[in-house]
Structures are given as structure tokens and as C-alpha cells.
């Protein structure tokens, strides 16, 4: 039964918070966080990334090697694109080696894209024109014709084509409304930069195409790219992702709400934010409810939402939780009273209803809420968890005393109430103990 309560509690809590409680799903939750935190302008796009795997990529002037820096940047871009719109697709091709080779056709499966980056061989010479043309062809055969077409080229090696040819290619791209982003890094000579600038100028339509020159240095290629329009996408969409990632890269510090960096612990930051809003709503509703005792039927529904709300107080920071606990205690009494009154008033209550009541009563418990809090913040908050546990013990006795004082909870009550509440009363106390044990185990 303890498992059932706990799992029910967890599932409803998880549903409300929409955060998977297992710590192994960190990536998923961070994605969700970013999805919430960033602006939601989503351009539906199909992107082909052209990678340079020519001999020039062995050079170590970008750490650790040009090729590795490029691979990191590609990974970052793929992540950003797929995040900013779930229907975005990304494909990858290599321009050097034996010839232009498409590694993966545009897909929204990030794993597939990242997997194909493994085991790439360096060699040969970069064929820019062919690479762009093959990319264009791959985009033409994309499954979702509504997607905008974009090609991202990493130009590391020298460019052997002359300006005229590149301009023709650019015009053809513009004619077919394909946008182009060029990352000029690696080999640096004036002619190359000029050619690439001309290429992007020929393609550019309304600032949808960009070129970025990244000189060698201590900055990683990916970091430099994060601040460019290639990531921020005309200042919309991926800016949230870029901003968050840039903050992480720069060693983002406090100044965030709740003193928690969303990048270090996005789960917690999100939970804090959501719980703050819910707490505000809950307190208003609680104030309203305390004044109105007669319409208990309505209150049942309200208390359900508020019980769920209270479970979200899981996320409140340690400093705030103390104040909240005092409030919660008083309100808990009111809630418990009403819940019990409900079960007493309604003799026809089914087992399921009572089970629901029980789980709601369970949510009333500060202890269980704390237990939830602990399990959510497992990874990040060991120290504060210890403090919580101490509080838990103190609270448990407090709450037990409250419960004992409430009507209907007392096992010594007349049999009429006992019939309905016999399950409830002893179980509540036992449950408290059991949950505490579960935590400590």
C-alpha cells in the first residue's frame, strides 16, 4: 500500500511538474526546461550540414584538432535545430575524402545524426561546389515539403573554385529559396574569405544567410558559433538555447531566481519557478476556501487541485520552505478536516473515492511532500537533504499530534466513523512511519 500511495503520488506529481523524477533522464528534462525557458518562435526547417574532412583538418590550431572542434560544433547545431522545433530535420554530408558522401539524410532523430559522426576518416580535398549541390539535392527530396531549406557549410580547407562559379551556385540556391550559412575557419587566405563572402551575398535573401569567420585561438569553435546568427537564427528561436548554453560556457553564476542556475540544475530551477507560481495561486485559493466552509462539495474539487499543488511545493527552496511549512500546517488542518468531513458526509463513497481521498490525504502530508522533494533533488542536494530529514523528523511528531487532535482520525472514535475511516486513520500514522523508513533506506 505504501508503494501504491507513493507511486500514485509520484505519478501525479510527475505529471503536474512534467519532470521525470529519475535522475538518469537529465537530458530530457533539461531539454524540456529549455523549451519552456526559451522563446517559442519555431521556424520549420530542414538543414543539411556539410562537413569538411579534408587533410587540412588534422591541424591542431583549434583545440584539440580542427576536425574535433568542427565535430563539436556540428553536434551543438544539431541539438539546437532539433530542439527549436521538434519537426526540424538535419542531415549530414562530408565534402572531402573520396568524394561527397551523404552520411545521413535529413532526419529528426538526433541519435542517428550524432552516431554517423563517429569513425569519419580525414583525407582528400574539400569540394565545396559539389558538396553544396548534393546538399541541395538532399533537401529537395525532403519528406516534409513545408520545411524551409538551409545548408550549413564548414569550410576548413582552401576553396579551389573561383568567385564566379560560387556566385552562380549562390544564385541557384537563392532561386530555389535555400538559405546558406558558412563557417569559415581553418585555412585563412584573403581569397578564400572573399569568395565565401561573395557566395553568401549571392544567396542572401532578407538576411536569412550568414557567414562567420572563426580565427584560430583559445576559444572553442562551438563557443564562438553560439553567439552568431547561425545559432540564434535571426535573433529568434534558438536564442534561448544559445543564451542558456552561452551562460553555461561562460561559467554562468547566480543572479538567477532562487539562486539556482538553470543550466546547472534545470530540474530544480524549473520546479522552483513552477512551484512559486502555483504556491501563489494556492495561497489565494486557500484564503478563499478558509472563508467558505459551506460549499464543501466544490471544495473537494478545489482541494484536489490544491493537494496536487501542495505536492509541487516539493520544489521550494530550503529557505522558503520553512515559512511555507507554517502556512501549510494551518491549511493542512483545514484541508484534512474537510476531506474527512467529505468522507463522513458521503456514506456512498466508493472504494476508489476513498483511495483517492487517501492519496489526497497523503498529499496533505508535509512528510510525503518532503519525501518527494528529497527524491527529486537527490542528485543535487545531498546536504540540504540532510537538513530536510531533520526537519522531517521534527515535523512528523508535530503532524502526528495534529492528526491525533482531528476528529475522525482518532481510532477511538465511534464505530460509525470508524467504518469509513478505519482504513484511513491507522494507515495514515503507519504510512507516515513507512514513508520515513522508505526515505532512510
Amino acid at each position, binding site marked *: 500500500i505504501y508503494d501504491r500511495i507513493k507511486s500514485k503520488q509520484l505519478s501525479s506529481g510527475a505529471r503536474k511538474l512534467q519532470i521525470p523524477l529519475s535522475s538518469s533522464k537529465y537530458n530530457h528534462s533539461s531539454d524540456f526546461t529549455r523549451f519552456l525557458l526559451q522563446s517559442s518562435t519555431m521556424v520549420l526547417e530542414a538543414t543539411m550540414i556539410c562537413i569538411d574532412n579534408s587533410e587540412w583538418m588534422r591541424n591542431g590550431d583549434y583545440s584539440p584538432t580542427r576536425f574535433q572542434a568542427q565535430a563539436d560544433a556540428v553536434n551543438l547545431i544539431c541539438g539546437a535545430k532539433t530542439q527549436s522545433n521538434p519537426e526540424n530535420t538535419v542531415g549530414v554530408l562530408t565534402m572531402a575524402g573520396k568524394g561527397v558522401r551523404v552520411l545521413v539524410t535529413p532526419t529528426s532523430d538526433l541519435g542517428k545524426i550524432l552516431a554517423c559522426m563517429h569513425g569519419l576518416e580525414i583525407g582528400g580535398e574539400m569540394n565545396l561546389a559539389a558538396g553544396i549541390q548534393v546538399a541541395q539535392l538532399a533537401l*529537395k527530396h525532403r519528406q516534409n*515539403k513545408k520545411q524551409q531549406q538551409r545548408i550549413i557549410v564548414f569550410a576548413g580547407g582552401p576553396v579551389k573554385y573561383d568567385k564566379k562559379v560560387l556566385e552562380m551556385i549562390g*544564385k*541557384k540556391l*537563392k*532561386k*530555389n*529559396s535555400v538559405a546558406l550559412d558558412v563557417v569559415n575557419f581553418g585555412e585563412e587566405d584573403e581569397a578564400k574569405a572573399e569568395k565565401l563572402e561573395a557566395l553568401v551575398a549571392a544567396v542572401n*535573401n*532578407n538576411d536569412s544567410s550568414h557567414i562567420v569567420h572563426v580565427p584560430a585561438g583559445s576559444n572553442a569553435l562551438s563557443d564562438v558559433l553560439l553567439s552568431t546568427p547561425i545559432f540564434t537564427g535571426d535573433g529568434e528561436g534558438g536564442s534561448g538555447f544559445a543564451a542558456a548554453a552561452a551562460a553555461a560556457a561562460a561559467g554562468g553564476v547566480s543572479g538567477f531566481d532562487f539562486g539556482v542556475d538553470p543550466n546547472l540544475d534545470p530540474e530544480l530551477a524549473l520546479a522552483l519557478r513552477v512551484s512559486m507560481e502555483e504556491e501563489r495561486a494556492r495561497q489565494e485559493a486557500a484564503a478563499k476556501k478558509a472563508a467558505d466552509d459551506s460549499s464543501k462539495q466544490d471544495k473537494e474539487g478545489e482541494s484536489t487541485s490544491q493537494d496536487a499543488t501542495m505536492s509541487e511545493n516539493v520544489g521550494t527552496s530550503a529557505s522558503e520552505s520553512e515559512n511555507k511549512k507554517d502556512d501549510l500546517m494551518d491549511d493542512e488542518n483545514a484541508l484534512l478536516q474537510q476531506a474527512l468531513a467529505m468522507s463522513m458526509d458521503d456514506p456512498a463513497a466508493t472504494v476508489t473515492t476513498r483511495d483517492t481521498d487517501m492519496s489526497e490525504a497523503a498529499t496533505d502530508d508535509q512528510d510525503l511532500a518532503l519525501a518527494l522533494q528529497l527524491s527529486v533533488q537527490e542528485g543535487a542536494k545531498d546536504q540540504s537533504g540532510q537538513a530536510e530529514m531533520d526537519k522531517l523528523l521534527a515535523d512528523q511528531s508535530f503532524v502526528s499530534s495534529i492528526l491525533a487532535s482531528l476528529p475522525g482520525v482518532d481510532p477511538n472514535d465511534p464505530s460509525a466513523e470508524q467504518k469509513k475511516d478505519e482504513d484511513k486513520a491507522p494507515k495514515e500514522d503507519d504510512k507516515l512511519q513507512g514513508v520515513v523508513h522508505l526515505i532512510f533506506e
Partner: protein
Amino acid sequence: MSTESTSAIVRNQVDLLDFIDWTGVECLNQNTSHPFPNAVKQGYREDEGLNLESDADEQLLIYIPFTQVIKLHSIVIKGPEEEGPQTVKLYTNKEHMGFSNVSDFPPSDTLVLSPENLKGKPVILKYVKFQNVRSLTIFIEDNQSGSDITKVQKMILQGTTVETTDMKGLKKIEDH
């Protein structure tokens, strides 16, 4: 054909502007400051100053889906003498064509516009080929003078819708 005035609408035909599904309209190689609605939308097309212009080169590819099935009777394309379109190919019910596959299949009709047409004289189409049109792709291959930019000032599609045709047709016949 010679008795028709320059801008008269042929009997029983309606301007199909109302049946264009604007959410799906695409125009490749248009200049974004002179886009497709300039040539087609009510009010815009009457304005001589607002044209549809091509961008990178002189070709234009316009894809127009309709909200219902229509029969296309004739088309009016107005443009300047020099830069107005010359060879226009029409494809029916082919989605998302690109410049590369215009030559893959034969057009439903090929028009060569004369200067008179550019002044507003409608071009009657091979009606039998346009009986069941869900979408129309207009490929403007070149212009009158061979310049780099093609300009279209006004474009009117005339025809009838499939649902309403029968009623009107029946009525008219009865009158006779």
C-alpha cells in the same frame, strides 16, 4: 476571340481569385519586395506601381493551390512591354515543383504572350486540359526582351468551380 475587349470577363466565367488557397501559395525566385500578391490580390494588382518581380534571374515559378476543384478557362497576364513574360507554361495538379523538374513532364499548356496579351487580353486555354484543377503551377520561362528581371503587373485567372458550374450551366441553357 477578336470580339472580346481587353478586360472583359468571358461569359459564365468568374475570377478565381476567391478560390485561391493563400496558405499554400508559393512563388520561387520572386523578389521579396515585389512578391506574388502584388500581381494577384485585389487592389494590389490594380496599382500599376506594384509588380511581381523575379530575383536571381528572369524565371518565375508560381504554385497556386485552390480551395476547391476548378475548371480554368482563360488567363490574363498584364505586364510591361519589355520585361513582361513571354513563354509561360502551365502545369496542373503537380505539387511542389522546382526549377529542375519543370522539364520532367509536359505542361498542360504553353502560352506565348504577345504584347496585346500583356495589355490585358485574355489568353484562352485548352479548356479540356483544365477540367479538374486542384492546383496550378505557372512557370514563366522568359520575358519579352530577355532582360534579367521579369515583371508581372497583374494576373487574373478566369474559370468556373466544379460544384457551381452545373447549376449555372443548366439555368443558362434553359434560358435559351
